[in-house]
């Protein structure tokens, strides 16, 4: 192997990249079908975006650690300001919105916030003296770092993304070694706060999504329609599926959002359980590689950042799949690398780029003994 393949290529993390390419290719095939058997409008732009963001990921992967550490807080502040700008534009424009129109690019700052909040927390805990972990300072500031973007995103309103931010942040805090009982207390508080949040914090359409998740049959033609149709699509696929381009649920528009949030159902209808397991295995390979990177990292910042990025990707995957299979309420979270959509591709490629970056740092700073 050494002789045949040039070193710059050989040193790439192929254990992750090959499954990723397979997944994106498979996603394109599903989108091809979802468009009624056509590359336009979904599949071609899906591949194009992946190519563009892969380049971006490679750029991220090549950043030096010091530069990243230096830029983390300014980046956090910048994205926070962008989120604030979204709020302001929305308030001036007379309606809530989630994105900024920057010339040709439509930017959704809440997506950027997901990896950035992970980095900011990793940076905080990396600089926090080891002895202070477990004291009140180690909870208050990170709490504020998570809460500020969460509040802004919730105000958009976008429950799914704000939960993703919270999840990524919480995992970094857990990995940083905060006392477990804090998480238990936090879990208890959440259990009490959830009903309160449900009644006072959620929009009516969000409340309805929760209630219909609990009992989808209560409203089969209304809010429960999404879940019901998604389950029909997955269940009717059987073991080997109905065949490529043969999915009636997606082609006849019974499945809502067959190319974005419910792309997995579209896939499962045509490729069946085999397709589903293929996707799950690929995600498992990618996430396992990510954990490997995190554990191999010698630097605390790199370790925590890598773990948080893996958690962020995982959150997307888990929530989306649980939603399409009727295990979670309908929250608008797309499936990484399969759903059509620039924002989710951007976020996930930032995460992958970040992991590749940590992977490179690991390679370049050989394992030392105990420091």
């Amino acid at each position, binding site marked *: 192997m050494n002789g045949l393949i040039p070193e710059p290529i050989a040193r790439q993390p192929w254990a992750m990249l090959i499954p990723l390419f397979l997944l994106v290719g498979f996603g394109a095939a599903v989108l091809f079908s979802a468009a009624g058997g056509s590359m336009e409008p979904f599949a071609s732009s899906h591949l194009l975006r992946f190519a563009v963001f892969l380049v971006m990921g490679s750029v991220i992967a090549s950043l030096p650690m010091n530069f990243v550490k230096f830029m983390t807080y300014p980046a956090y502040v910048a994205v926070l300001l962008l989120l604030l700008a979204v709020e302001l534009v929305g308030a001036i424009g007379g309606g809530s919105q989630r994105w900024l129109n920057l010339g040709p690019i439509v930017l959704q700052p809440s997506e950027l916030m997901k990896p950035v909040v992970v980095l900011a927390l990793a940076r905080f805990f990396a600089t926090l003296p080891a002895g202070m972990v477990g004291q009140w300072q180690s909870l208050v500031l990170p709490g504020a770092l998570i809460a500020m973007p969460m509040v802004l995103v919730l105000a958009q309103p976008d429950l799914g993304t704000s939960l993703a931010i919270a999840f990524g942040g919480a995992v970094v805090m857990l990995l940083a070694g905060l006392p477990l009982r804090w998480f238990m207390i936090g879990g208890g508080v959440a259990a009490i706060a959830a009903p309160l949040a449900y009644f006072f914090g959620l929009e009516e359409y969000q409340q309805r999504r929760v209630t219909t998740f609990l009992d989808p049959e209560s409203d089969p033609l209304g809010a429960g329609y999404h879940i019901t149709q998604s389950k029909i699509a997955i*269940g009717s*696929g*059987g073991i080997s599926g109905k065949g490529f381009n043969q999915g*009636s649920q997606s082609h006849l*528009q019974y499945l809502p959002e067959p190319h974005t949030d419910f792309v997995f159902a579209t896939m499962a209808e045509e490729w069946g359980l085999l397709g589903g397991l293929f996707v*799950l295995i690929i995600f498992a390979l990618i996430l396992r590689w990510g954990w490997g990177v995190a554990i191999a990292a010698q630097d605390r910042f790199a370790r925590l950042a890598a773990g948080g990025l893996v958690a962020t990707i995982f959150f997307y995957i888990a929530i989306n799949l649980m939603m399409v299979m009727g*295990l979670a309420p309908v929250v608008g979270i797309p499936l990484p690398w399969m759903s059509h959509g620039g924002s989710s591709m951007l976020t996930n490629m930032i995460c992958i780029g970040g992991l590749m970056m940590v992977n490179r740092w690991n390679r370049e700073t050989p394992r030392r003994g105990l420091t």
Partner: protein
Amino acid sequence: MELRRARSGLNATQLKHTFDRRSFVVGTMMGGIGVLLAARMSYLSIAENEKYQTEAESNRVNLTLIPPRRGWILDRNGAPLASNRADFRVDVIPERMRNPEQTIDQLAELIELEPDRIADIKSEIKRSRGFQPIEVANGLDYDQFAAISVRLPDLPGVVPQRGFSRFYPTGPSVGHLIGYVGAASAEEYELDRNPLLITPGYKIGKDGVEKQFEQTLRGVPGARRVEVTASGRIVRDLETREDIQGDAVRLTIDGPLQDYAARRIGLESGSVVVMDCLTGDLLCMASMPSFDPNSFSDGIGSIEYAMLRDDERVPLRNKVLKGLYPPGSTVKPMVSMALLKEGIDPEETVFCGGGLRVGNRVFRCWNRRGHGQVNMAKGIYQSCDVYYYHMAQRVGMDPIAAMNRRCGLGEEFPLPVTSQFYGTVPDPEWKLNKFGREWQAFDTVNATIGQGYMLANPLQLAVSAARLATGRHVMPRLTLDTQPKGFDEVDFPEDHVAYVRQAMSDVVNGPGTAGRGRLPFDDILMAGKTGTAQVVSLSKSDGKSGPWRYRDHGLFTFFAPFDNPRYAGAVVIEHGGGSGSAYPIARDVMTFLFDPAEGMQRLRALEEQWGGNAQERLAAKYAAYAEARGETVVPPPRRDEEIFDQVEAEARDAAAQSEEIADEAVTPRPEAAPSGAPRPNPVEQILSGGETT
């Protein structure tokens, strides 16, 4: 940093261990969720595969029933009384509509609906059970149909289709006989859970023959399997099975005669029944005024319903079967048969001085001046009441009641009709049971002249005429596939029949009470018997003028040719002011039967005076009514059954009207012939065989 580490007991190495430990736990939990997802996915696609496959298939494939073409209803010669017309129609299914009000408004704009129709549809949608289709319009032209079809994705719940609508060529003339069709009600669907009943465009028989022969006429629905998108757009046809048209029902009715009779009734309210004496075939069962089954089959409109409902001539009542009237003097031939059977010599005379004293009461003859010496024949053709008062006192009520029943009064015939009222033939036992009172002399007096408690429907009177004319126990039949019945049963001896026939001929052709009833043929003589039935006491009305509902009923039973009867029948005109309103109709109907051209000529002259034929007059009346009352109409009952019940209850009420004066002896009114005196007409006397006095 060193100091702090000492205080908290944590250092970087410990944190690294914590990280490794916790990352292992978190990674394991992620793996666990992955396994959970794989298990869930397997469960959905293996264990529940069949269920979801069915659901996906029922999503994808839309099975629409193609309503079968209804069988035709034919007259005896094979001409259609009810047929089908191809048309474009549009229905809505309320439970599939997102915003019914808005959708209906949109539809109304596309096909230019009238405001009252829009209001009707909206209120119908509100009351409906959701799954039942509601007709918006039929008879659309192709452009309207196409306009709706292209907008279907924006009009959920709207079902436009090519279909067939029921067509009754003679309209109101056959309304009561044939009935009409309409969308099945929720109750009907509950009784017969046939998906066809809630298929848009399918209609079941609601009344009359349409209802009675529903199963025969229904046919087998076709089916069309199509692939549809979630929004209901049809992607492609998968499979189509043609419908099988329902079988035709062939009636004994003579279509042209039915139409003629209905039109001849004209402005009056009444019925005409004509039977074939050789087979018992009902050739005509006309009841007018009527509704137009064509427009009823499109759904009963509020204005239309209100108009029919407010009409005191009750166009919704089938008077042939549900009109009960005191038969008046038309019972006299039957009573005569009873007297002959009891051995009374027909030549025995009774002196009529204008009244008869029984005990300390005097019962009046309609002819106050008296008929002089009256034998049985004169009793019939002059309709002398005193003769019958006298003879009835002699034989008693029971043989008379028995004979009335033998002739068909009080009888319910085995006919395929939705319901028939069978009336009353009173006798002492009946009165005791019903009122707890003894039979009185005046009860017999009333009964012998067809008044008091006695009630019959026009069909019974027609059957009685056929039985008297033939001497056989003729049973009426309505469909050609049933066997004629009763012809092997001899009711009356030949000589009795001959005697009564002759006397009844004299009613028309001799010195009788219906001189103007002669047929315009030299070789065909019609026999008959007039009847005038009072509904209120003499003090309340003279029976000929004043409020319509107090006027006398006019009746006439007849058969022809009198010496070899071929056709028999009855005409009853409600509140026509006496028998003079009835027998000219019988005369013209029989004229039409023997010479259609002559009959039509007479009818045309009459219709010119009346302002068009029945259908035209109904349309004109509707327009005027809608103009005057359009704003304030009462919507029709939700279920057709409610209409039927209401009509039936009113019919019973109306039949009871004449019972109010049954407690007293009815003082008969002068009969149809103006003076009651025989008309000096030598030719008639010769033709009638010189049996006159």
